[in-house]
């Protein structure tokens, strides 16, 4: 079975994905509002899995909501909270529920979240989870036992093209492709000349690349991300540009920067699409797309 997202990736169009974060609690109103707003404008919506290790409504439930509202969900799954039994079981359930896109992640440290004393699992890693998806598709669990009823997924992973040192990340990137990744979303990119260099390397693999673009909401937020968010490195000139925005115009400036970056990625055909991360401001994704000239 080919998912709508998989179809979009194969079509050669400039693919756009974004995120929807499940709430802390059971009030899904805001999430549903964001999904309604975004579902027809983007090719798929990632549903995050206890992002930054903060306990929330599950990504599986969030992905079901996207599906229910007529959107195309990408189920984010981390290896932090579930062992191989639970991960396989959730993949069976997701596929049964019509969720056919999965983004396999290792997951942030438990210590970064709001349940610091919890036991971290990491029974599998992101590349092994991709292998699990492919094994289940063959009709077997990873112990080799037959499944009664199969699954089908468009599966992907992530890479951090601005990591230092980069080479160990690239080795892992290649392992993810070997394990069965069809698409790779990148962690936030800011230095597009550097990203072009990364694409000269990544372009040789049979995998679709979506460049990660984060909406900067203020100069302090950019500095906070540099100090606190794993794998995000905002350059000083962008922080200065955010700081130079007149009062009341800061968010507009952030939208302009994100739109400008997406526009350049699109126009210069750097990669297959973008993954827009407008953390807690998902409703601004259409404005970013508009600033990029995409709608």
């Amino acid at each position, binding site marked *: 079975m080919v998912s709508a997202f998989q179809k979009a990736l194969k079509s050669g169009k400039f693919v756009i994905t974004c995120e929807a974060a499940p709430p802390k609690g059971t009030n899904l109103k805001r999430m549903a509002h964001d999904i309604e707003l975004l579902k027809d404008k983007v090719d798929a919506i990632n549903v995050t899995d206890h992002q930054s290790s903060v306990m929330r409504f599950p990504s599986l439930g969030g992905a079901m909501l996207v599906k229910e509202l007529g959107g195309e969900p990408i189920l984010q799954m981390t290896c*932090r909270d579930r062992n*191989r039994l639970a991960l396989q079981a959730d993949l069976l359930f997701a596929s049964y529920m019509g969720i056919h896109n999965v983004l396999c992640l*290792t*997951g*942030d*440290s438990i*210590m*970064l979240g709001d349940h610091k004393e919890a036991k*971290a699992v*990491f*029974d*599998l*890693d*992101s*590349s*092994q989870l991709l*292998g699990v998806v492919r094994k289940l598709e063959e009709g077997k669990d*990873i112990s080799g036992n037959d499944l009664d009823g199969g699954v089908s997924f468009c599966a992907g992973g*992530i*890479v*951090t093209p601005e*990591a*230092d*040192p980069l*080479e*160990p*990340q690239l*080795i*892992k990137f*290649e*392992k993810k492709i*070997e*394990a069965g990744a069809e698409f790779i979303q990148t*962690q936030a990119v800011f230095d597009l000349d550097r990203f072009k260099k990364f694409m000269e390397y990544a372009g040789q693999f049979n995998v679709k690349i979506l460049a990660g673009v984060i909406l900067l909401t203020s100069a302090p937020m950019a500095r906070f991300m540099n100090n606190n968010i*794993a*794998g995000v*490195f905002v350059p000083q000139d962008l922080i200065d540009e955010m700081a130079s925005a007149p009062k009341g115009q800061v968010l507009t400036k952030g939208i302009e920067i994100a739109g400008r970056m997406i526009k350049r990625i699109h126009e210069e055909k750097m990669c297959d699409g973008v993954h827009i991360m407008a953390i807690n401001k998902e409703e601004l994704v259409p404005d970013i797309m508009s600033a990029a000239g995409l709608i």
Partner: protein
Amino acid sequence: MIRSITQPKAEKEIDLLLSGSGRIFIIGCGTCVTLTRTGGEPEVRAMQERLSGKGKLITGHLVVPVACDNLTTDALAEYGHQIDQADTLLIMTCAFGVQTIARQLKKMVVPALDTLFMGKETAAGEFTEICTQCGTCIIGETGGICPVTSCHKGLVNGPCGGTDSGKCEIDKRKDCAWTMIYNRLMDLGRLDSMRRLQPPRNHLGEPTPGKMILSEK
């Protein structure tokens, strides 16, 4: 040498554990906890002073040479009278020592320390975890550096995305195991070893609780 690395429990926790005890005998150890300054002679004396100040009667104290060794039996026998007078033993050794002592004396034991990890002294006053005794050693493929122990997430296929400048996402004082492994394998001309996709780990080395009987081997 393998060292058991400990840190003192909070005074509040020790006080709570000792709340029903009036007469206490304190035991330290001359080996690992002396090195880490958590249960040697000076720490035992300081504890004695603190607890006396709180109105506890300290019936005596002893720093055994190696608390986890069977010879501890003889050392304890010498202090039999003072130990008998105590209702609780406050033990300032690692958990090996606490359990070795608890097995021999019919007394409630209260550990004064938390045992953090098995490691070694990697610089003066700096201790690093080396092995978690997982039972399925994989360091033949990682240049002798253990990612199960030295990577915060125990990853076996390379770094996570949180690593930065060779450091771990949880603590900049901690090296990223996979940066170290990458550098080591590159020096050895063996990066091919890191490129191999490792299957899910075998966690069935020896099911907890570990036990080995040589005659059954």
